[in-house]
């Protein structure tokens, strides 16, 4: 099959709250999809429905060609947002146990467990108890248990939460590796920079509704911000020098940096040359679109004020994970 996961018009409510509305999704086999959106957007709810932990109120769903993920348990690797370990088990034993639960033989699971622990740099803590691990180490262990059994489909809910930049980078590389091996991967995150780096599809969800479903290329072309970032050498340089360029719509000064918005249809490279010729600059670059910006644009509209954008930006970057509450509402 070429489609690993397919959702059609899926809707999920928790009492009065609509968690997911009219969701259509097709995840091609072998792709790496990033689910992005702020906390409470509906990412975890969607993932739980894919995993048959929750069930949609209406709509259809198919996973690996079957009506329910339950039928393909051993071919799927899952890292839930709320994840724990058996605290009193030894690390090696824990990873092995998880592998065995997914259908690996005792022998294979032991070998794979040792291999993976060495790979992520946890070879020495194999005989330590899980509760002795730091948060970052625990996350790595949990990631291992999600992929150790060579699943075809890997679903990771907020895999980077709580990781320091170094470990986040390591995890990103590990995920990428799985992707290169041909596995279908979905991961959700509210840190959009993570998705930007490795995904070949980006799905944006906001308040239960899908707002975006594109490849990074498509995003780049559609959401070209048409902005230059200019950092003049002299602090007192006059923005008016640049404002008068034909390509330039307006210049906004933010501390030491000028954000130069270009007119629609203007050629960025020409504008760049023009700016450089008029003002001695430390730096002139075409601003690269960030998913965060796109998201804010989508949610607040292109006319959003700086304050509105800042507020939303801060909301996006806040890293409080949502706890699953009794009614299942949350993400």
């Amino acid at each position: 099959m070429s489609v690993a996961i397919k959702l059609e018009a899926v809707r999920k409510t928790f009492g009065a709250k609509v968690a997911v509305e009219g969701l259509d999704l097709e995840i091609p086999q072998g792709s790496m999809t990033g689910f992005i959106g702020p906390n409470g957007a509906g990412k975890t709810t969607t993932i739980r429905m894919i995993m048959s932990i929750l069930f949609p109120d209406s709509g259809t769903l198919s996973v690996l060609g079957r009506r329910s993920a339950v039928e393909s348990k051993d071919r799927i690797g899952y890292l839930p947002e709320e994840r724990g370990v058996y605290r009193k088990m030894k690390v090696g034993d824990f990873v092995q146990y998880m592998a065995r639960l997914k259908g690996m033989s005792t022998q294979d699971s032991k070998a794979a467990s040792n291999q993976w622990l060495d790979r992520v740099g946890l070879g020495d803590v194999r005989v330590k108890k899980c509760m002795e691990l730091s948060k970052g180490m625990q996350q790595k262990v949990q990631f291992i248990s999600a992929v150790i059994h060579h699943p075809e489909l890997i679903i990771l809910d907020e895999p980077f939460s709580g990781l320091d930049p170094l470990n986040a980078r390591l995890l990103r590389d590990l995920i990428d590796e799985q992707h290169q091996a041909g596995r279908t991967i979905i991961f959700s995150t509210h840190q959009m920079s993570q998705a930007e780096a490795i995904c070949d599809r980006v799905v944006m969800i906001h308040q239960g509704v899908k707002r975006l479903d594109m490849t990074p290329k498509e995003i780049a072309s559609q959401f070209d911000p048409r902005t230059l970032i200019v950092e003049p050498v002299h602090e007192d340089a006059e923005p008016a020098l640049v404002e008068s360029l034909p390509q330039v719509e307006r210049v906004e000064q933010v501390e030491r940096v000028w954000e130069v918005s270009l007119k629609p249809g203007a050629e960025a490279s020409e504008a760049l040359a023009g700016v450089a010729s008029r003002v001695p600059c430390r730096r002139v670059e075409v601003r690269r679109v960030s998913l965060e910006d796109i998201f804010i644009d989508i949610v607040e509209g292109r006319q959003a004020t700086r304050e509105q954008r800042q507020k939303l930006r801060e909301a996006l970057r806040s890293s409080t994970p949502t706890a699953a509450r009794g009614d299942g509402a949350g993400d």
Partner: protein
Amino acid sequence: MIKILTVAQREFTTTVFTRAFLLGLILPPALIVLGIAISVAFSTERAPAVKGSVAIIDRSGQVASTLTAKFTPEALERLYRDDAGEQVSKAVSKAADQASKGPADPVGAVGGQLDAVQAAAAIAGTTPKLTLDVLAAEASVDVEKARLSDWTVDQGGRLMLIVIEPGVVAPKAGGPIETYQVFTAPKLDPRVVAPINRGMVHQAVVDARLRGAGLDPVRIAGLMSLAVPRAAEVTKQGERRGSGAAQFIIPLAFFMLVWISAFSGAGQLLNNTIEEKSNRIMEVLLSAVSPFELMAGKILGQLGSGLVIISVYAAAGVFALVALAYADMITWWQIAWMMVFFIAAYLFIASVFTAIGSAVSDIQEANSLMTPAMLLIMIPMFAVFPIVQNPTGTLAKMLSFMPPFSPFAMIARVGSNQPPAQWVIALSAVFSLAAAVGAVWCASKIFRIGVLLYGKPPNLITLLKWVRMA
């Protein structure tokens, strides 16, 4: 099935192969035995070492003299040290020697020896230091009584007053049979009073009556001195002491074995399930196994741990019985039934506890749901003694067919000296196992829903609703 076994194996090994489990297996019985031994060694029926005087108004004129002869410190020592009953005969013979050897003034003789023996008693410090105070026969009872309320532990004083009317020793023909009166100071320890009352005074009055009838009290005492023999049981292996106590201990032991093993395993289940929920590992597990596989595996695993407990204790018990030559008191089929009823009891209780554990997110929340579970735990405890004492009584028969109590009631009956017929046992076993299977089914319904639910824990009604849902 393999996944169930995998879960079961983990559950078993992480429970049994820990220091805590092994200690829990060995320590409690060892501590209980030690505790009993210590309390027996230190417990005492001995009277506290109070001091004071015992006053006597003897209006019969027959008793006071023998009493003073007997009121020696050595006699007191022996009186208070041993069982009052057994000491009567010894005190009598000793007093008889002294009376025959002593001078005409018994009070003086006693007084002379008092100092010497009191020194010894003071070193021992555990016998009441009492003096005998013979009052005039005409003394007013009310006046002399009044002094009793002045007695204190520190200062001493008069702590007992004995009044003997003439009719006590020489009852009038056709008249009412009187007895002597005993008055004591307030809050006087009964252990001080009883030996004087039962041991000395009572015997002295009886002796006076015997003499009044022309009989020799010493001779009569000798004739009456006869130990009551203990019955000897005759078994195929030979004779042994009577097993009276064992006949009640064995059914109790069967019961305790099943109770301890069943609740130990089930308790672990409760804790482990709650841990898996509060550690948030549940969702990961459920991506690999179904809720039923998870629950079944856990129940199976802890069945193993319960079996370890019951087997170890049963083996120890059998070993003890063999060592004490009581081996014929239990049979293999009793042990087999015990295992069957253990499984039934465990499955039922484990289901209840697993259901509770799955519905809550931490141990405190479990408390509100635990109340019905506590009933499960306590009712067999209350019922076991009546059932052991009366294995064929109504309570025993009723509970034998009322799951979840049926395994407990039945195993107590099976171990008793009046076990029920095999078909009755088998019927109860079938009932118990069927109920256990039903409990597992209900629990799986609750488990399925509860395991991923966090937040406010459901109450009992909600749980029952879940059972009825598809």
